[in-house]
């Protein structure tokens, strides 16, 4: 059976989540691998939530926020950017791989970008294969 990755998506309430809604209402098709969790702002996502997702067996984590300057909380998305840039080397170091963590800006009016982002990230995770956590489970 081909590998179908499990991806956790953290979508901010105002832009990305609205964009995902729009993608739905405009009948865009995209990979079903991303399971979306709504948060108020991408700035709410911290290392605990991301680590939790990986330890629970996620193959990738996608964080989506508003475009810089467009954040409903003025600059929460910039905090997210700093945090995720800092976390990537950490996930590289512990063997999960920083590439499994992605941050994207999607504006509320950009439904097609949700589909595009989800598809390209799913494709990338498929290339990377299952997360090390899941591989170990398979071996046992």
């Amino acid at each position, binding site marked *: 059976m081909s590998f179908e990755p*499990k991806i*956790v998506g953290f979508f901010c309430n105002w832009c990305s989540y609205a964009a995902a809604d729009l993608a739905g209402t405009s009948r865009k098709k995209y990979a079903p691998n991303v*399971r979306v*969790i709504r*948060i*108020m*702002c991408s*700035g*709410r*996502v*911290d290392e*605990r*939530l991301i680590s*939790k*997702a990986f330890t*629970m*067996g*996620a193959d990738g984590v996608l964080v989506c926020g508003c*475009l810089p*300057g*467009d*954040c*409903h*909380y*003025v*600059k*929460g998305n910039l*905090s997210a950017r700093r*945090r995720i840039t800092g976390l990537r080397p950490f996930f590289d170091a512990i063997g999960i791989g920083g590439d499994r963590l992605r941050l994207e800006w999607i*504006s509320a009016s950009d439904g097609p970008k949700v589909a595009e982002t989800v598809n390209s990230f799913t494709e990338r995770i498929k290339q990377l294969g299952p997360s090390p956590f899941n591989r170990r489970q398979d071996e046992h």
Partner: protein
Amino acid sequence: MASVRSHESIELMTYSEVVEVSGYVGNFKAKIRKKPRYVDEDKCTGCGVCQEKCPYKADSEFDVGLGSRKAIFTPFPQAVPNVPVIDPDHCAYFLRNKCRACEKFCEAGAIDFEQTEKFVEVDVGSIIITTGFDSFDPSPIVQYGYGIYDNVYTGLQFERMSNASGPTGGKLQLRDGSQPKSVAILHCVGSRDINYHEYCSRVCCMYSLKFSHIIREKIPDAEIYQFYIDLRCFGKGYEEFYNRIQREGVNFIRGRAAEVTDLAETLEEEGKLIVLCEDTLIGRQRRIPVDMVVLSSALEPRADVMETARMFSLSRTADGFFLERHPKMDPVATMTDGIFIAGCCQGPKDIPDTVAQASAAAARVLSMISKGEVEIEAATSVVDEELCSGCKICIELCPYTAISFDEEKKIASINEALCKGCGTCAAACPSGAITSKHFTTQQMMAQIEGVLV
């Protein structure tokens, strides 16, 4: 304006600007700079003798460079209050320390060269922002020749020219004083254009139609050409007005003008401006010689929109205008409680829409005042006093300055009236002392488990 000024419960501050805002809904503190006018408002009777006697002239901002004003002037005839202001950049007293003609002739003794800027602090409950728009400067679009050819005007310049109290007394004329026999009006200059502004400025179609009506009225035998992409006559009575203009014999050419040039190819083009365009309805390139070109330039956000947005913690849309709370359900409020927006600072709109939005903003403020108390967001963050180590990381991060440091307890404390519940602080807190309600770490963890099982 005059009735606003004379209203007993309204204090009108002209020639002033807000420099600092702090606080939250119901308890804003605004610091306002009152610029010096060098004329005592209480003594001035508005007789205007100073403006007659002042020997120095400058380009009038109100007439967009078509006319001149004195170094002491009232910006426009209906200005409220009817008190002139001295422009220190052109006044001989400020430049060379002499003249003082206005002071000599002022019977009321209102001229006061010693005035300095004053700062006042006011307590306000809510704020309505109506900073308006700037008119797009078409000179970067070199192919239209604004600033290169004398007889290319912007819409605003034409408007001043057609005004009876304007620089030409309402006479439509070319730079040499002669009457134009043919006029081209170019739509969508700087708007609906990916190189400048992608949005539609909404008002240009209608004012361009109005211009052709004015031209037809003042010069009955003039040839009038409208170069349009689409005519968007969307409002009440607008379509009827468009039909009326068509009946008045105006030439409508569907196609964005490509260029305005003075290079004549035939004898009849000699000495004229030639508008080049593709007429998409007949599918042919055309050259149309005219005497005058009017550019319907776009409405764009104010030049200082960034500073205003920062001062009031407002967000902006991709086009630069202020972002409303919800494009459909709440087009008047902003993401900051107690701050409302109205008019073109929120996006291009015409007068009826502006009046409607401004009335709505005023009504929202009044309803808050009459209620006496405000409802606040339930999803706010709270600090666990036991866990907080007082590191102050969250204070720096909060975009709404809702977190302050309690010097006595040495911990952070969150003002629930200011907090919007974004949760950035909860994510950043190294001790896990901050919980964002409805998005607690436990809830988020449970959700992650839920989606991954």
